[in-house]
């Protein structure tokens, strides 16, 4: 993991962000033409269909054999944080070699997946490019040995000469090209505030990727166009390449999902009037104070709700999420008040000792009294759970939590969560 100083031209405030080291393994077509942009945008977007023994499936299974944390990025491309497997293989290099050997052993069933490669670098993008180099997929660029490895901290230098098209979708690359920005290095050097002003926050997130400051891109949801462009044809030419929300896997099975944002002037159904109200409210309260909510997948009510500012909100197709199985998910009804961050609480057993959830996910003793946010202790009339949840096991702040539903003697119902022996109230059924 490399700590990189964050360049911030706007404020001059330097912060440090940690960029995870990733290993990307790919099994891709050996053809000369490369599908652009690289499948970086679809990180954890869609798991490819794991139907009987297709090459992407076998490939993922082979990598998962060596590192269970591997996740598909696109068919034939998968990724995991190096940290999770490095120690078991005695270092990064031998891990890379082991994975490479394994994926090269796979039968050569389909020409779409004949070229195999492994790349290791800080961040998803650099690792992805390194893997493609290792597979011999980017002709004209120097090979970096069998396993494409970019040393820790070298990501910006590594990425600098590559063309923008590797990263950003063609329309934005074209717009940037018109102002003389052709490589990732040039994008990384642009003053941040000017970039945001002109091309929006999506371009800024690409800049973070290009300068090796961020692990993975945010899904493109903001408005992206040259906001100062007087040339209308430039923005007129920017047609959405795919329908929003579509999972686009093309012929070469290399392209990936990206959601093309809407543009200014695109009127949502009946939102024009509401937009004016929101504009007035933001004048009153400040930008980003008017929110819309999305429901995502997740276990707890707090995880499942995402609030986004009105300006960057894009309605989803379906209003109700699909019922995907989430182990450890609390069954409905959900609490009507959700506290984020959660409120400190205390849950005591009959002997007055703090209730504890064992490593196997059961409560040591029945909870008897509860206090939320420093209020006086009240008796517990009923409880359910715990629902254990081992979250974010793939990233640094691994969280082991357990949730308990609680009914007090006064008739109030709460959702409590325990983490490292400390109890919090995450929601109230008001």
């Amino acid at each position, binding site marked *: 993991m490399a700590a990189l100083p964050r360049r911030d031209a706007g404020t001059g405030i330097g912060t440090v962000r940690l960029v995870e080291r990733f290993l990307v393994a790919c099994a891709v077509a050996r053809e000369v033409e490369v599908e652009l942009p690289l499948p970086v945008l679809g990180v954890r977007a869609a798991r490819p269909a794991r139907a009987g023994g297709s090459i992407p499936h076998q490939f993922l299974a082979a990598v998962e054999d060596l590192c269970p944390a591997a996740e598909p990025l696109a068919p034939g491309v998968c990724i995991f944080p190096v940290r999770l497997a490095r120690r078991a293989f005695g270092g990064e290099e031998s891990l890379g070699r082991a994975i490479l050997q394994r994926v090269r052993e796979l039968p050569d069933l389909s020409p779409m997946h004949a070229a195999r490669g492994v790349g290791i670098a800080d961040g998803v993008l650099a690792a992805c490019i390194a893997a493609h180099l290792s597979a011999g997929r980017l002709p004209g660029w120097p090979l970096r040995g069998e396993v494409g490895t970019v040393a820790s901290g070298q990501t910006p230098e590594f990425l600098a000469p590559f063309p923008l098209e590797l990263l950003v979708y063609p329309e934005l690359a074209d717009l940037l090209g018109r102002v003389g920005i052709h490589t990732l290095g040039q994008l990384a050097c642009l003053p941040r505030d000017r970039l945001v002003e002109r091309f929006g926050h999506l371009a800024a997130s690409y800049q973070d990727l290009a300068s090796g400051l961020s692990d993975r891109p945010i899904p493109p949801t903001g408005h992206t166009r040259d906001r100062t462009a007087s040339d209308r044809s430039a923005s007129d030419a920017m047609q959405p390449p795919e329908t929003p929300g579509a999972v686009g896997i093309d012929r070469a099975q290399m392209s990936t999902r990206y959601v093309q944002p809407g543009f200014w002037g695109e009127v949502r*159904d*009946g939102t024009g*009037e*509401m937009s*004016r*109200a*929101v504009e*007035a*409210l933001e004048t*009153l*309260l400040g930008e980003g*104070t*008017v*929110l*819309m*909510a*999305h*429901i995502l997948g997740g276990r707890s*009510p707090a995880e*499942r*709700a*995402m*609030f986004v500012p*009105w300006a960057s*909100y894009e*309605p*989803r197709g379906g*209003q*109700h*999420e699909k019922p995907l199985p989430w182990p450890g998910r*609390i*069954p*409905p*009804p*959900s*609490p*009507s*008040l*959700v*506290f*984020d961050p959660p409120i400190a609480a205390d849950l005591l057993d009959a002997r007055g000792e703090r209730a504890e959830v064992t490593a196997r996910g059961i*409560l040591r003793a*029945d909870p008897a009294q509860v206090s939320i946010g420093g209020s006086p202790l009240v008796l*517990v*009339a*009923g*409880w*359910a*759970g715990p629902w254990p949840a081992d979250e974010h096991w793939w990233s640094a702040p691994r969280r082991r939590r357990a949730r308990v*539903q*609680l*009914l007090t003697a006064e*008739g109030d*119902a709460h959702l409590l969560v325990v983490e490292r022996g400390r109890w919090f109230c995450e*929601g109230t*059924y*008001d």
Partner: protein
Amino acid sequence: MAARPQLAPLLDARARTVSLGIDRSLPLADPLAPLFPRGLPRGSTVVITPRSGITIGLALTAKASARGCWCAVAGVADLGACCATELGVRLDRLVIVPNPGPLWPEVAAELLEHADMVLVRPWGKASGSVARQLAARARRYGSVLVVLSGPAWPETPDVVLDALKGTWQGLGGDDRPSRGHLYGRLAEVSASWRRGHPDTLYCSLWLPSPDGMLAPA
């Protein structure tokens, strides 16, 4: 002459559009019908008592948002979006202003002009003049003001909704207190109308029912 028989369905369609246009009530979830015998008229003010909780307020917006009406919630910083969807609220028709602070009257006034239903939790105690102005604004723009009343609302609203503290089902029991999970809440809800209905109306509701929705008990 051949065009003549086709005129009738055309006129019919037009007439129906007009009658929708003068429909002066917002749609409400069916289980709430016993409390709102004449629907929820646009321009009215609803006060929800503090002990009732926020679920009943969200339930009011469910049908209206599902029909495409814009709803807004101001002053509820901890709104549970999952609970709202389970109640049937369409989130892409729900604008949330979590922290209007002392500017809540201005925020509510602005929202009442543009949204169809506005849930607001006053920040501190509302003065009589603010309450009167907001009610007047709702009447003028044909929206519905729903006050999630912290301190008592100084004006007499069109209807006061009061959910007597419900009893949660699914947890507890003497033999094994850790059984099951929260299943639903049975609540007795009353509606006291200012005019038209001499008596307070009562109704038992699942608030919410086991699938998170509103249901008659």
